[in-house]
């Protein structure tokens, strides 16, 4: 699917569909790893939860027409909310719902549009979950990604490259959760014993950004 023209300044509906499919594929592929990470400091269901949800999202996509990126992201958010459960359901659901609200009616997104969308999603996640950076959650992957997007936007970077930079920042953010002591979510029950483990939600959030980078990259 050539949804992005080389060095394109914008992504379209098809590119966002490709992003979501790519994310679903990454989750499927890393399901066991996410379960293992969540077993170490949680209850071992993060991979299963996200996989169940992304399958539902992809089912919905199969019937998705039109060019409204906002509607697409909202539909994904609704599917996640009603199929994932656990902490990830409301959090990823809200992330997508808020990205959808921020992009309502848009047929294309440039770097600024993508930045606004992810920032709105992050704000939604923080409003819902009350986590701050450093609490060892998905927020720790999303915050650097949003920051990287802002930098890319002021530097006039095209959206495909911006997504790549955001993914790289999210990866750093994900790795930075390893030495953290969890203060939110199930891992917080472990207190100091949560140190030394990578947060599963930060890991899936990195996969989300990596999927964007891959879907928006020149083909």
């Amino acid at each position, binding site marked *: 699917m050539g949804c992005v023209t080389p060095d394109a300044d914008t992504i379209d509906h098809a590119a966002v569909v490709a992003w979501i499919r790519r994310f679903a594929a990454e989750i499927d592929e890393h399901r066991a790893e996410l379960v293992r990470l969540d*077993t170490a400091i949680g209850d*071992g269901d993060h991979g*299963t939860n996200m996989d169940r949800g992304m399958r539902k999202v992809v089912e919905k996509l199969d019937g998705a027409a039109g060019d409204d990126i906002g509607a697409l992201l909202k539909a994904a958010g609704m599917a996640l909310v009603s199929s994932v*459960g*656990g902490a990830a359901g409301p959090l990823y659901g809200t992330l997508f719902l808020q990205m959808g609200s921020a992009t309502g009616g848009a047929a294309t997104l440039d770097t600024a549009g993508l930045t606004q969308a992810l920032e709105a999603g992050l704000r939604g996640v923080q409003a819902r979950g009350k986590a701050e950076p450093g609490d060892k959650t998905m927020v720790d992957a999303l915050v650097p990604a949003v920051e990287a997007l802002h930098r890319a936007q002021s530097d006039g970077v095209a959206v495909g490259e911006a997504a790549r930079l955001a993914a790289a920042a999210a990866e750093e953010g994900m790795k930075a959760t390893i030495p953290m002591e969890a*203060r*939110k979510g*199930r891992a917080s*029950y*472990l207190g100091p014993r949560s140190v030394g483990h990578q947060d599963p939600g930060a890991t899936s959030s990195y996969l989300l950004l990596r999927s964007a980078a891959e879907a928006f990259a020149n083909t």
Partner: protein
Amino acid sequence: MKKLINAPDAVVREALEGMELAYPDRLRVSYDPAYIVRADAPVAGKVGIISGGGSGHEPMHGGFVGPGMLDGACPGEVFTSPTPDQMMAATKAVDGGSGVVHIVKNYTGDVMNFEMAADLAGEEGIPVEVVVTNDDVAVQDSLYTAGRRGVGITVIAEKICGAAAEERRSVVDVAELGRRVNAEGRSMGMALTACTTPSSGEPSFVLGDDEMEIGIGIHGEPGRYREPLAPASVVVDRLASAVVEDLPYSSGDQVLAMVNGMGGTPLIELFIVYRELHAFLEERGITITRPLVGNYITSLEMAGCSITLLRLDDELTRLWDAPVNTPALRWGA
């Protein structure tokens, strides 16, 4: 992984079907979204009470649906909070026009999903009151963490709120009562073995043959600390000391004491634990006036137990004693 199941991802659905088949006159089950309500729901003029949470804790919550206790329960996947649409559908199904109480165990996922459901219910004009249980003293409570977990007191709050709802008390009253039960209740659990979720296929943690884990949660979460296997009297001392000191309970208190099995512990051991608990409390001048021994809030096949105390007064005792008619808790009916 050794389980009497057909396929890991069919566990919750098939168990629900089994429950529906086993209690056709008492329960009604919806599958999409998944919830269980008492056969005669909604009861006009009565506050509806729903609870819910991940599956794997049976009989909680589905086994507590029936007259005198829950009107509805929302089962999530194993150890995974259910979703807002389940809760919303159950809320509608049990609303007899007097509003609905949501009894929610304090886990990030459960709280957030129930929050979204309460928002939806509000939009539809159904008054919802939320009772969040957080009785697990194994977890440090703080504004800056997820806070204490909801465990054993949830069962007791469901029973007592259910009795109050049968008396046609208001949604605010019933919720207030639930919060009072939570405030007067404390719990702590331990494990001799871990448990394995059907989807992961691996034990949630690994314990040596000579070790036990103190302060575990009900989702296979590891506990507060690990120590060498010890006699039941020591186990009870660990759990009951933490519980009693936290509220604290003190000499002269009358309590409901629940000794709960985690799913893989035989009843004969739970009675030994109860004996130790009785002695422990008696020594401190605390009198058990209502006991409950059995498997009520479990962690799949985990071996271990938890202890829950509720400080009783006349009202709570009366509501506890009121008739209840559910698959897992039944008396006076």
